[in-house]
């Protein structure tokens, strides 16, 4: 039993911290979002040089054979520093889809480019009408000679604005909401018939709705087994959720840090407001939430690589529920404890609060994961 970082993890956590502290501050980040491309290509290249983009890939492909715990160590720092780069969509999501289901040719071609920083990817698993049900897929592919023709729309794809290639879940057979009959395709973002509605999310990271209209792809674009993508989709979503929860934990740490600091410096009625017991107890509650969330984030990262879908799903859904509720409540308290300052766009608290909102909702909100946890736990 051990909840600490390994020596290696301490090392790359520290160097990532240094990189992000040196590269980012609130003004740099806001300029990138408001006037720039929404991320820093320099930081992305620095990730590549540090080996972060190679972290989860097998050694024989130039990777470091990292686990989801290693990913967690990275994601916590990304959250603490509000990094904008598409690490989760490219490395965690597309990376795990390729590892889990990719052919040798696909892996050789794409993983090397991800590692070198030359390829950004995204994975599109939800649709405008599907909410969080990844089996509710109306985007369809029909065979046409050796090719497939894909039509449909995908919604709120994290990193979909920057992706060069997008992995799309498509119905190739079965009923609209069936887990059977789903196939993953690797689609070029610039292919004929692909159009993107891009936008900034609450926290400044980019997302997109992806529209596919008679997009022609070769059979070699199929990722994994035809009609049998469901278990891969679930695994990818679980790994994405685990990583986003770790990001959220990093942001949570900062929310608490900022709030505690404010309680010490802000004076009213002739003393620091942190001397008032009502406020102290709100702060204590936030710390209790944080520590318990941290325990669950560690657990879901340790289970996120598991092939046992039920065990993995329960761990990940637990974290989504817990952090979704506890983090949400703590963010509200943090704004309240700050008073008017917490409402201003200039002060950084709101940026961390919004980062946590992304992790709370993407790949399923609290209600979605409560139901999922219940199904996995009580219906046998």
């Amino acid at each position: 039993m051990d909840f600490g970082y390994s020596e290696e993890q301490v090392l790359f956590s520290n160097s990532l911290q240094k990189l992000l502290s040196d590269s980012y501050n609130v003004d740099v980040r806001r300029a990138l979002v408001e006037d720039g491309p929404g991320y820093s290509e320099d930081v992305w290249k620095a990730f590549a040089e540090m080996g972060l983009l190679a972290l989860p890939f097998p050694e024989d492909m130039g990777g470091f054979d990292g686990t989801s715990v290693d990913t967690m160590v990275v994601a916590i720092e990304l959250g603490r520093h509000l990094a904008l780069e598409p690490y989760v969509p490219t490395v965690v999501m597309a990376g795990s889809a390729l590892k889990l289901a990719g052919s040798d040719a696909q892996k050789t071609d794409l993983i090397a480019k991800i590692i070198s920083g030359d390829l950004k990817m995204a994975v599109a698993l939800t649709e405008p009408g599907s909410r969080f049900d990844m089996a509710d897929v109306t985007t369809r592919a029909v065979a046409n000679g050796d090719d497939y023709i894909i039509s449909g729309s995908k919604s709120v794809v994290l990193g979909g604005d920057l992706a060069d290639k997008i992995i799309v879940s498509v119905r190739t057979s079965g009923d609209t909401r069936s887990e059977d009959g789903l196939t993953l395709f690797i689609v070029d973002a610039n292919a004929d018939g692909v159009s993107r509605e891009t936008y900034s999310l609450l926290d400044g990271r980019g997302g997109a709705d992806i529209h596919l209209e008679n997009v022609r792809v070769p059979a070699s674009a199929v990722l994994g087994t035809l009609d049998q993508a469901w278990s891969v989709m679930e695994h990818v979503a679980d790994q994405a959720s685990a990583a986003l929860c770790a990001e959220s934990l990093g942001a949570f740490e900062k929310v608490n840090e900022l709030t505690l600091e404010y309680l010490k410096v802000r004076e009213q009625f002739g003393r620091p407001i942190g001397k008032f017991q009502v406020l102290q107890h709100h702060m204590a509650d936030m710390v209790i939430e944080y520590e318990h969330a941290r325990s669950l984030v560690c657990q879901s990262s340790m289970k996120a690589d598991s092939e046992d879908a039920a065990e993995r799903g329960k761990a990940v859904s637990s974290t989504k529920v817990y952090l979704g509720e506890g983090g949400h409540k703590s963010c509200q308290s943090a704004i309240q404890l700050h008073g008017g300052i917490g409402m201003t766009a200039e002060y950084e608290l709101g940026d961390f609060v919004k980062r946590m909102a992304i992790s709370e909702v993407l790949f399923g909100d609290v209600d979605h994961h409560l139901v999922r946890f219940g199904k996995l736990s009580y219906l046998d």
Partner: protein
Amino acid sequence: MDLNYSAEEEAFRQEVRTFLKEKFPQDIGDKTRAGKRYSNVDNGRWQAALYANGWDVPSWPVEHGGTNWTPVQADIFDEECFAVGAPRMVPFGTRLVGPVITNFGSDAQKKKYLPAIRNGDHFWCQGFSEPGAGSDLASLKTRAVLDGDEWVVNGQKTWTSSAQYANWIFCLVRTNTEVKNQEGISFLLIDMATPGVTVRPIVLISGEAPVNEVFLEDVRVPKENLVGEVDMGWTYAKFLLGNERTGIAGVGAGKADLVELKRIARVERKNGKPMIEDPLFQARLSRLEIDLKALELTNMRMLSEVGDGNPGAFASMLKIRGSELQQRFSELQMEATGAYALPWQQGPLEADWNGKAVGPDHAAPRAPLYYDRRKTTIYGGSTEVQKNIITKSLLGL
């Protein structure tokens, strides 16, 4: 990071399981599962079984019978005991006064009291709280004045668990009124048979009377019954309260509660289906199970990160969350039972009762347990006091 126990720890778990299978009185486990109340004889039988195996006082120094378990081992032991329905060991002798005596007592005190705790001759209760001293314990007023070779004690203790069974009580008494509250308190051991000691039970909203008032009127206590130094009792009391590292979170008890809750929810029906399939109920059950897992993991983090060190604010967090969970389990068990939780039935909780209870088997203990559990966020440092501790020690506010 690694969630697994080491091979040694797993082997220890097996050893504990084997012991429990062979030596734990199964009828006591049946009582636990049926929600019946233990008698003092039950507690004695369980302690005797532990004593025979050398596991009755694990936290004591080895020369006095301790086991030198790691915090993880102690935790495994607790968890396995709860899993078979063993009652929580009455802590006053083995876990509370025992370690105070081993650390601060004289040789004569060690010789007299330690073996008697272990063989069951002495059964202890704790005289700390007073009518005017609860969360603000140091404001206690029970007075001890030296008269020749004896302390003469006058005052009143309250909320004294097990005083109806105990033959000894360890008390915090005021021996100096000239100094700050904390600096004028001493730690005194009193034979309950001494003239002037009167015990009166307090019936609680659960219907049970597990706590008492203890009146001390001109009670003459031999001078040598004072532990350590005069006026140093607050230090020993803090040691005693902080000494309880395992079991703060009540993870083992929570797991047993979860098993019982799921059992009830599979038996009870709603809309023609088991309650456990009702979406609203299931969501609440899921939240509770998730929160228990968060508590379990946080407890594991404390054990593996803090080790033998001072758990500090961690312990306060676990106390807060653990006690809230205990309450929520009893609450949801009661709710799952529906209207049959409402008949007020005390008889079925007694071990020797032969009547027929109203409603399903699990119904009778539900309301008494729910009301009993309200105490968990009050005793041992209330939730609010724990938040004050977190505020000071962790946050520096």
